[in-house]
């Protein structure tokens, strides 16, 4: 039996190391080395054999395992895989990260299940799995508890809306109102990633403030299960159509099988999307994937005069220092927040926060 080599850190900034790493992964059929994927990598580990060839590698990006590749030619089935995943998990544990995800090809899903991962959703192209000290069932339990605390009926007509609300506008409000009229209970899931002009805490607070009068509306964080950097990076990063389609399919199936099923959600509400290509594809995919389990209702965007209300326009007004021009487009609570924090928001834009994306 060959001598077991220790797991070591790979410095991908070294061109020679990077080249060997990329060639090794390519030989295993991993071919996406686009800059926006590579930039997210925090740490890469590897195992070399006694001849100095790379035989196993894996990387972490935040709490997501990426680029896991193992050559099993000269080892007991799975032993290098287990070493790499184990080393990555211990590395994340040292950083205080205990809840992690992986996207992987269908053929590797079983290997991850053997080391304790649970499947969240799958397509023909890939599977998303999670492991750790909390999971999706803890999440839906917490969400259901919020509704229960408000004495809202957990079953019957239950609607759901997922929104970034960056910031919460009259357009969002209109969508929520429609859903609130047509359902016994409405969950509003606010996207959880802090990569927008308004922080997650601010967006969540503004949605809550702007819907406080609607008795059957429950506003919660979408955590890492809805349109998050984990499930749907294309929402935040420029991405090709086929990748968007793949990610949105996983996001839609995760929502359908893990979230909607557990929370008895019957209808998902969407705003029609005339502008964003990514959101446009997402809406199409949701309409294909969710029914018949969950029906999908597309609500036309609310207009103010001839203009369609969008959060993008509101953000542009902040940047241009013309807050008054969008006064009618946002609820009073959002307007007040923007007025009081205008300097801070403008400073964020000056520091390079992109306001034209999602």
């Amino acid at each position: 039996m060959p001598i077991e080599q220790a797991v070591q850190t790979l410095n991908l900034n070294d061109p020679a190391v990077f080249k060997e790493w990329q060639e090794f992964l390519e030989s295993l059929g991993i071919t996406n080395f686009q800059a926006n994927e590579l930039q997210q990598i925090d740490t890469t580990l590897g195992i070399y054999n006694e001849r100095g060839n790379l035989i196993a590698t894996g990387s972490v990006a935040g709490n997501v395992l990426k680029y896991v590749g193992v050559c099993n030619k000269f080892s007991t089935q799975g032993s290098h895989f287990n070493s790499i995943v184990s080393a990555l998990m211990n590395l994340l544990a040292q950083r205080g990260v205990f809840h992690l995800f992986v996207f992987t090809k269908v053929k590797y899903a079983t290997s991850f299940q053997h080391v304790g991962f649970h499947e969240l959703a799958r397509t023909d192209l890939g599977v998303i799995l999670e492991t750790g000290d909390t999971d999706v069932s803890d999440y839906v339990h917490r969400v259901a508890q919020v509704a229960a605390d408000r004495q809202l009926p957990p079953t019957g007509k239950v609607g759901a809306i997922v929104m970034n609300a960056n910031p919460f506008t009259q357009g969002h409000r209109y969508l929520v109102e429609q859903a609130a009229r047509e359902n016994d209970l409405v969950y509003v899931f606010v996207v959880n990633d802090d990569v927008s002009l308004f922080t997650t805490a601010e967006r969540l607070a503004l949605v809550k403030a702007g819907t406080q009068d609607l008795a059957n509306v429950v506003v919660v964080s979408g955590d890492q299960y809805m349109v998050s950097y984990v499930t749907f990076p294309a929402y935040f990063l420029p991405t090709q159509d086929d990748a968007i389609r793949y990610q949105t399919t996983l996001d839609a199936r995760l929502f359908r099988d893990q979230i909607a099923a557990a929370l008895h959600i019957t209808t998902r509400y969407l705003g029609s999307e005339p502008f964003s290509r990514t959101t446009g594809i997402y809406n199409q995919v949701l309409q294909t994937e969710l029914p018949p389990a969950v029906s999908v209702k597309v609500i036309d965007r609310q207009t103010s005069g001839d203009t369609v209300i969008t959060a993008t326009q509101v953000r542009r007004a902040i940047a241009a220092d013309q807050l008054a021009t969008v006064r009618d487009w946002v609820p009073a609570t959002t307007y007040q927040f923007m007025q009081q924090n205008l300097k801070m928001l403008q400073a964020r834009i000056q520091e390079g926060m992109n306001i034209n994306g999602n």
Partner: protein
Amino acid sequence: MEIKKTAIAGTLESSDIQLMISQADSGITIDLQSDVKKVFGDQIEAVITTTLKAMGVTAAKVKAVDKGALDCVIKARTIAAVQRAAETTDTPAWEVL
């Protein structure tokens, strides 16, 4: 002993067990993944539970991924995970061994 934070001990290597211990409101729950669960599942869970009780842990959520660990390994990994989770690694509870 009170579980204050999530902690991990052990590896996924052959003959080892990876244990993750986190807070729970009450009781001990064990989510065990093992290729030999059918035969040794009860035994593995019993070793973990006994060790936890010996350390005075009454509420904990345990996620265990077993790769064929012997009882002494399971016990050692449980002790290490608890001490990390209870932040008592500076004052190890030797008597439990």
